[in-house]
C-alpha cells in the first residue's frame, strides 16, 4: 500500500473527484453523496477504481458496502482502516442534505 500520500492529500483528491462529478453542487466532506440522486453501476465502478488508484490498494470485499462510500469523510476513514489493516470501525456520521 502506498505510504506516499498523506491523509490530507487523500482527502483533497477524493474531494476533487466528487466535486468533478457533481459540478453544480456544493458538497461538504460529511454530505451523503448518494442522497443527491441515483447512483449507477458505472459511477460506482469508477469511484471504486479511482479510490483504489489513490489508495494504492484493492478495496477488500468485506469493505465493499455502500456506507463506506457515502461521503468524503467515510472514504477517508476507509483508507485509514485499510492502511492500518484494521477491521471495520465506527462509521463517521453523514449528513443527509437536500
Amino acid at each position, binding site marked *: 500500500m502506498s505510504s506516499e500520500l498523506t491523509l490530507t492529500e487523500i482527502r483533497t483528491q477524493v474531494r476533487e473527484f466528487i466535486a468533478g462529478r457533481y459540478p453544480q453542487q456544493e458538497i461538504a466532506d460529511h454530505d451523503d453523496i448518494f442522497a443527491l440522486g*441515483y447512483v449507477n*453501476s458505472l459511477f460506482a465502478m469508477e469511484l471504486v477504481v479511482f479510490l483504489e488508484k489513490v489508495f494504492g490498494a484493492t478495496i477488500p470485499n468485506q469493505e465493499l458496502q455502500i456506507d463506506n462510500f457515502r461521503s468524503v469523510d467515510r472514504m477517508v476513514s476507509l483508507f485509514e482502516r485499510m492502511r492500518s489493516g484494521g477491521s471495520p470501525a465506527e462509521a463517521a456520521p453523514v449528513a443527509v442534505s437536500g
Partner: protein
Amino acid sequence: MTTDSAVRGPEVPDAHRRGRVKCVVWDLDNTLWNGVLLEGDACDVRPEVVEVIRHLDSVGILHSIASKNDRAAAWQRLTELGLTDLFLHPEIGWQPKSESIQRIAASLNIGLDAIAFVDDQPFELAEVAYAVPEVLRVDVVDLADAIRWPEFEPRFVTEESRNRREMYRTQSVRAEAEREFAGTNEDFLRSLDMVFTIVHAEREHLQRAEELTLRTNQLNSTGRTYSYDELDAIRVRDDHLLLVASLTDTFGSYGTIGLALVEKGDLHWDLRLLLMSCRVVSRGVGMVLLNHVTRLARDDGATLRADFVETGRNRMMQVTYAFAGFREIARDGDRVVLERDADLELPEASYVRLVTDPIRTATP
C-alpha cells in the same frame, strides 16, 4: 491443428474456446488485399478473405482493422472496394498493432480474449503475442483452417447476432453525439429518452437469454450458463421469475440486454442470476433491473437475496450490488449470498422511463 505455422493464443480448455471470438481485427496489406498500398500496388481484394468476413459477420462476429498505413489512402481504397461498412472502429496509423487492438477492445467494450488478429507479418503477430497475449492470433495463410476453430463458431445464431454490427454502428453514432454534447453526463443521458422495458421471458426470448448467459462477463452475478431448455423449464414455474430487459433510445434499439432469474420464497426471494450486457454499461442502467426485482420482492413482502460468484471478471457486478445496498450474509469460498438492507430507499433513475408487463404466470 498443431502445424508450425498455425498461430494461436494461449492454450484454453476446449469448453471455453467455443464462440470466444467476438471481433476479428484485420491487417490490410497482403492480408485483406494483395500488395502494399503505399508502394503503389493495385491492391486487389482477396475474395476468399472477404467471404470469410461476410460469413463471420452473418453469425454475429464483428470486424475491425489494425493497419500500418496512411489513413486517408487506406480508407479510400476500402471505399472503392465497398467494404467500409463491415469494419467498426478501424485503427489505421503508425502505432503498434497491440495498441490498436487495445483501443478497438475499449471502443467495443469487449475483453482482449474476445479478439482474434489476422496478419501476414511474423513481426506483427509476435508483437501482438508479446504485448497482448490474450488475443488469438492467426497467420493469414492459415485462415481457411482457422475459421473452423471452435473460437469462430458461436453456439447459436440469433436475430440479435445477425443485427449485431448494425447495433454497434448505432452505438458509435451515439458515442459521437456524447462527445459533442456540452452538458453533464446526466443531462446527456436524459437527452437520450431511454426506455427500459422489462417483461416475463417468452419462448422467443430464450435463445438470446441463453446467449446472454454465455457472452456477458462484467455485469454477470454468477457466470453460470443456462441452456435454452433449462430456461424454458424455469420460465413456466410458478415459484420462479424469468425476466428479460431491453433498452431503446432516440438512436435506436440496444436489443435484449438484461436477464434476471429469481426463485420466489415466502420470506425471501433469491436472485439466482442477474446480468446486463456490456453494451449498456455506459448508459447508467445497470441497476434498473436490480431495483425492479427488489421492488417486486418488497411488494410480495419478501427481502431480496442474491447469489454472487467471484469469477475474476465480474467485479463491476459486485460493486453494483454493494452500491445498491446489498451485504454479504454467507460465504463459501468464492460463492457468496448477499442480502439487501430492507430499510434502504429505492432510488429511481430519473433519466430512464421504465415499462413493465403486469405480474402473471408465463404461458407454456
